[in-house]
Structure formats: structure tokens, C-alpha cells
């Protein structure tokens, strides 16, 4: 065991960074969900065979989402530095990292939400329409509740993805396990530090996944429940 690793444990530094990884991930996923959910709903609703087709809006939204989705996170961070500066007054540090994670995750969430809503049986939507439901009522009383298990699974997938992104955020000075692994581990040739970070990450991912899937299963009232395989 390297000296530096011992020091990291003794000073509690490693736990501090693990904790930062957890909360930045959860917080940015939460905010990304708040932004991505309505966009995903909008994408679904304005689709050409959606509730209220509006092809131009759908195309425009889809294009923005696709551009952001196809940008590698490292490049996205560099490209959006001014945006972080605008929102949090700085283009480095944890606050900037949060902004980056949200920018990267929101479009991802939007696509996941869109596809979750697509799984809702068209027949059920039809039935709701036949009962005189308005589009808003269909969104809030049919689409979202019926897709709930799938939406929860989507949230788990996004959380895990964002956790992966957050490791890269050390490039713009964000704290967390990524920083520990790169700065203390890689750059100072302490391989054991890298592996300790890997172990921490694996444990965090496992916990998020198990808890998330458990909740998704619990809420699902169908017999053939949503599958765990989808995440892995």
C-alpha cells in the first residue's frame, strides 16, 4: 500500500471525494430529470403519431437533443465553459462541473423518457380519449403513471451514466473519485489508488442499481414486470 493511499484514508480525503461523487451525481441527475422529463414528454407528444403532432417543433427539439447527445463529454465540457461561467460565475470547480453534468444528462434523460412513454399501450391512450380525456389529462393520468416503472429504470440508467461522466469532470477541476484516481493515482504512479477508486465506484453503482430496480419492481403492478436486463 502506497504512502499516499494511507494518507488519503487517514485524513478521510478519500471518503470526502466519494461523497462528492455521490451528491454531484444525484443532484445533477435530479435537475437533469426535471429538465429532461418535460422535454421527453414534448418529444413524444409532438411526434407525428403522438397526441398532438407538431412536426417542426419535434424536429427542432430532436435536433438539439441529438447534437448534445452525440458530443463526447470531454468536448462538451470545453465547449460549454462560457455557459457554466454564465450560470455559476466560474468555469472551473464543482459548481461548473454540476452545470456540465446537467447539460450532458438532460438530453439523455429526454430520450429515455421519450422511449419509456412509447412503451405505453396505444390502446390505453385510445380508451382514455374515448372517455373524453384531454391531452393534459392523458399525459398526467395515463402516460406518466403507466410508464412509471420504466421511467424509474430510466432514472437509474441516467444516474449511472452521469456517475461515469462525473469522473471526467476533474479536467475542469471538479472534485470526486475521478480526480483522486487521475491526480493522485495516475499522475503520481500509485496504481493502488486507482483500484481503490474503481472499487468505490463499483460499490456506488451497484447500490444505485439495486435500489432503483427494487423500487421499479415494487411499483410495477404487471405480472411480467419490467426487466432488470435493460440496465445492464
Amino acid at each position, binding site marked *: 500500500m502506497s504512502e499516499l493511499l494511507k494518507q488519503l484514508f487517514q485524513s478521510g480525503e478519500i471518503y470526502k471525494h466519494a461523497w462528492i461523487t455521490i451528491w454531484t451525481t444525484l443532484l445533477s441527475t435530479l435537475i437533469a430529470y426535471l429538465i429532461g422529463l418535460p422535454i421527453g414528454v414534448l418529444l413524444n407528444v409532438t411526434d407525428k403519431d403522438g397526441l398532438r403532432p407538431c412536426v417542426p417543433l419535434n424536429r427542432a427539439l430532436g435536433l438539439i437533443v441529438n447534437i448534445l447527445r452525440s458530443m463526447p463529454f470531454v468536448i462538451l465540457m470545453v465547449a460549454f465553459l462560457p455557459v457554466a461561467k454564465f450560470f455559476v460565475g466560474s468555469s472551473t470547480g464543482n459548481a461548473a462541473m454540476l452545470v456540465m453534468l446537467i447539460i450532458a444528462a438532460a438530453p439523455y434523460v429526454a430520450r429515455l423518457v421519450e422511449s419509456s412513454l412509447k412503451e405505453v*399501450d396505444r*390502446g*390505453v391512450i*385510445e*380508451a*382514455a*380519449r*374515448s*372517455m*373524453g*380525456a*384531454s391531452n393534459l*389529462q392523458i399525459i398526467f*393520468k*395515463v402516460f406518466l*403513471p*403507466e410508464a*412509471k*416503472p420504466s421511467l424509474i429504470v430510466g432514472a437509474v440508467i441516467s444516474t449511472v451514466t452521469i456517475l461515469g461522466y462525473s469522473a471526467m469532470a476533474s479536467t475542469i477541476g471538479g472534485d470526486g473519485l475521478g480526480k483522486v484516481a487521475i491526480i493522485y493515482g495516475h499522475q503520481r504512479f500509485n496504481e493502488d489508488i486507482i483500484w481503490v477508486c474503481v472499487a468505490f465506484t463499483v460499490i456506488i453503482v451497484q447500490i444505485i442499481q439495486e435500489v432503483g430496480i427494487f423500487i421499479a419492481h415494487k*411499483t*410495477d*403492478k*404487471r*405480472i*411480467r414486470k419490467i426487466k432488470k436486463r435493460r440496465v445492464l
Partner: protein
Amino acid sequence: MIEFRHLRKEYPVANGTLVALDDINLSIENGVIYGIIGLSGAGKSTLVRCINLLERPTEGEVIIDGEDLVKASGKRLREIRRNIGMIFQGFNLLEQRTVEANVRFPLELIKTPKEQANRRIDELLRLVGLQDKAKAYPSQLSGGQKQRVAIARALATGPKYLLCDEATSALDPNTTNSILELLKDINRELGVTIVMITHEMKVVESICSYVAVIDKSKIVEHGKVTELFSCPKSEIAKELILPGLIRSESTPGNKLRLIFDGSVTDKPLISTLSRECGVEVNILFADTKTIDGKIFGHMVIAMPSDDRAVAEIKTFLDKNGVTYKEGI
């Protein structure tokens, strides 16, 4: 009353347009059970979906109680839809809601006070015989039970009309009969006008009083079920009543179709016929059932070549009040 006037529905398809409904004119009187029958792809679902404007007609009018729905605003249309319940082949229940919450759904849409909604739900579940399943989820129910939930839900807002699109097609014969009985009760006791879409003559025969036959996007004949059944005019109606094989030339000789509309009581008719007329009667096809001691359905028998025997058979049938039709 539901009326269609010069209704036309086109769908844009890859190589032009597909005409799913062509110049449909039809009136459905209040209080009846009206069957709409046709083969797959004839346009039945499209037609029934035009009644509540789930499908917007390309041309023509859909008039319900004197109001043309095509001209109604979005808000007005949603109001009208609450007066038209609908059930489907696939049940279309909300899978994440209990039976009770499914029936509550249409009441939630119009913000019915909780107490009042609870009472209504109780009433409806009793009507369809599912009080004990109130807390169950759809995935825990059989097909027949799911359709009962769907019926309760469709009736929640007290509609005057009920549309059924192949409501029994996914069910076994026994369950089908129990659902049909329930629909009959609903029609009789609540006075709900029912429009039944089906591809099975049996369904029409057992509960409808009027029927329209739709073939290749057009209505080819319509009227009383008894009339259609005793003398179908269109090829397609004949086909739906009797399988083609029996009508075909593969069984030569003269045939007679006996039609039982419930006016004959259950008795060993054919053996009596054989004995009294002194002829051997060959039954080519039979599809009859006895309800409350009365015979319903029809039967095809081969006729002897001897003219005198034929006359005797006819006299016997007339005497016993059996309707019959020569040459099917």
C-alpha cells in the same frame, strides 16, 4: 340516434390513398343493439371509431342526437364522448391501477366528488359482478373479468351509447356468452344503445336486433337480424351465415335451409319429419341451440329428388311453423 351521412374515410398510404369507408349512410335508433358485421379489413373498426370521432372522417357527417360531431369543438367533443362508452377487443385497462381505480378513471376526468364516485364504483362493480375484485390489478384477472372491468369503466359516466369493437373476440365461447348476456342486460335495464362490431354471425344472432353488413368499405345490406338471417341478399352475408363449403356445388342436389327464430319449441323435429313423411332426411349442416325451450339457429338438409316427397316435407314444416328457404 346515431346517423352517418355520406361518410367517407381515406388513409394516406405509400402508394396513394386507401379508402377505408365509402359513402356510408346508416341510422341507429335509440335503445337497440345494432350489429356491424364484416370480414377482416372491411372497415368495421374504422366505422365505429368514427362514431366518437377517434377517427376523423375525410368527408360526411356523424350525427348524434341531432348534433354533427365533425363540427363540434374540442371541448364539446370531449363532453359528447362522455355520453358514448367504448370497449375494445384488447380491454385496454390501465395496468398500474386497480380494478376500482380503473372504473374511477372516467369519474376523475370530470372531477366527481370522492364520495359520489365511491358509490358509483360500488354500483358498477356490482352490476358486472366484480365486487370482490375491487382491489385486484388487471394482471391478476382473466380475460372475461378484464372485459367486465372495461364495461364498468365505460358505463361510469352513465352514457347513452356503448360501442363494442370485437369485445368478445379474445374470449372463449363460455366467457363470450356471459359477456353477451351482460351486454343484453345493460341494454334492457339501463336502456343503453349498443353498437356491436364483430366478424362472428353468432354474436349478431344472439344479441343484436339490427345489423349492417360491411364489405370492402361499403355497407352492402342492413336491416332486422331476423330478415338478414332468413334471406340474406349479399354474397358476403350468405358467406357469414353459412360456410362456403355447404353452399358450394360439392354437395349436389337440392337443399333446404330451415331457420329457427325461437318460434318453434324444442322437440325431435327431424325424426318426426322422417316418420310422418316417410323420407330419410340427410342433415348437411346444423347450428342450433335451445334457449328457454325454444330453438334458435339454422340447419341445412338435403332434399329428396322426388317432388311429392318435397311437397310433403314443406307441408310438414309449414304445419310446424318452421321458416325455410330453398337453395339456401
